[in-house]
């Protein structure tokens, strides 16, 4: 018993592990809230794109010696806006607009840092994530941006829900659908930046999508999906950090893989829609 306690306690005796835990928990809550809309509206590609595009901002801020989060935030928001504009005005599909813009922004990021003599670890921690390197300032920024996102979702929950469910009807009811959709994209941009340091650009989309998708297999109302998604994300974070500590593997990848395993479990054994569950449930007659 004491062995188990020791096993569980040991990693979190270190300040950097405590900070990592706090950061991933906050990321889990924020990502689940926005991720629910991402899953329901099929915005995963945009989420991924915004994360990649934020690299341009990271690189620019790095070269100019500015705040890297701020750079990432600006790049993500500009890209979100550009995607919405190009997708709605130009005669290219939304998917194509996303594909063009995010790769362009990412390439710009690479271009900028390729001028630098030394690619430091700090910069690459944004690409692959380095939650163990989260400092106090990082924590504060994650908390601040996360709060903004949560506040917006709480305030405009009904409008977001109505617009996501039935944009035509929402527009007919006088809800400013365009504004709500831009707002959601902007919040998505902020959320990807919140998750950047924890799991890195490449894995951000997993934090947005996987926990919320897992929850959507288990519960059937939007706010329950958000809540359960946050729990799934939190459990993945804790388990992932233990795995990372004891197996000495990258923490971001360990967290994401844990979430993936949880998703697969829900996919197979969800009481209502599980693949395996279905085998045991008799098909309702008629």
């Amino acid at each position, binding site marked *: 018993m004491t062995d188990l306690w020791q096993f569980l306690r040991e990693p979190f005796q270190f300040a950097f592990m405590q900070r990592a835990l706090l950061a991933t928990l906050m990321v889990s809550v924020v990502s689940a809230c926005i991720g629910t809309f991402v899953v329901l509206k099929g915005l995963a590609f945009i989420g991924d794109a915004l994360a990649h595009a934020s690299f341009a901002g990271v690189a620019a801020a790095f070269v100019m010696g500015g705040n890297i989060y701020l750079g990432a935030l600006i790049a993500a928001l500009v890209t979100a806006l550009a995607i919405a504009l190009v997708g709605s005005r130009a005669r290219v599909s939304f998917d194509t607009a996303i594909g063009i813009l995010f790769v362009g922004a990412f390439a710009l990021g690479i271009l900028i840092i390729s001028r630098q003599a030394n690619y430091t670890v700090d910069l690459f921690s944004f690409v692959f994530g380095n939650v163990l390197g989260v400092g106090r300032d990082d924590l504060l920024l994650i908390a601040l941006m996360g709060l903004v996102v949560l506040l917006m979702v709480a305030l405009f929950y*009904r409008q977001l829900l109505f617009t996501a469910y039935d944009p035509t009807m929402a527009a*007919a009811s006088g809800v400013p659908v365009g504004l709500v959709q831009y707002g959601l994209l902007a919040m998505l941009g902020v959320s990807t930046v919140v998750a950047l340091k924890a799991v890195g650009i490449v894995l951000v989309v997993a934090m947005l999508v996987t926990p919320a998708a897992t929850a959507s297999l288990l519960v059937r*109302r939007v706010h329950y999906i958000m809540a359960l998604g946050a729990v799934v994300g939190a459990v993945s974070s804790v388990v992932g950090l233990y795995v990372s500590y004891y197996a000495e593997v990258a923490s971001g990848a360990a967290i994401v893989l844990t979430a993936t395993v949880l998703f697969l479990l829900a996919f197979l054994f969800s009481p209502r829609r599980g693949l395996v569950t279905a085998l045991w449930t008799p098909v309702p007659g008629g």
Partner: protein
Amino acid sequence: MEEVAAPSLQLRVEAEEAPVQVRGVWAGYDSHVALEDVSFSLERGSLVGLVGPNGSGKSTILKVMLGLHRPWRGSVRLFGEGPAAGRRRVGYAPQSELVDWSFPVTVEDVVGMGRIGRLPGRAAVRASPWRRPDPEDRRIVGRCLERVRLGSLAKRPIGELSGGEQRRMLIARALAREPEILLLDEPMAGLDAASQHDVLHLFEGLRDEGKTLLVATHDLSCVAGCFNLALLLNRRLVAFGPPSQVFTRDNLNATYEAHLIFLPFEGAVYARHHGHD
């Protein structure tokens, strides 16, 4: 704006009071024309069947009336106001095929959405789309659910509804706005006889309360049997009047072109869709 032939005083008074006034509307998508010079007006307490084949512009005219689709020419007046202002007095139910039935919300949630947005005849606070729901909203939602006999299914996820229940839920959401005008896009498609009877009874009740209902439907016999007026649309307005007068062979031919078979029977003409239902 279309110039209308010199309006008499009589006409002008009517224009201010008519719940619905559509004048010379041309509309379409890209270069495809969906509506050609459509004009009509609807009075209070009328139950109007909007009839026409697929692609005849039924959904488009409803969207133009809601201000969701901008007409190329012509105008829409709802109680004398443009669609953007007038639609707060309108309840709209889209075709149920256009609704995402896998979305994780309950029947009550969806009907409650009918309470969001600008509502008529209340204090300014109530008019805000950002207003939070209050007990009165919940009472109205409950009442609307009872009216379409979905009271017992309020907490049900929408994905578990039958086709008939889905359509009744969309009607309840339109009713939740406490509208004076109801625009319903194929609310009776796929209903069984019992639900259809219920829904028609509801429509008649609403009409008798003085509401104006414009109901897009493929069910001609229903319109002939229960509706005051029929509006035959095939991009242009083919005919508009009491069903007994406008359901003539010529009008139906002009509306449905080659898509109908006509069966003369005991002095009446019965029409049947080709490849429909």
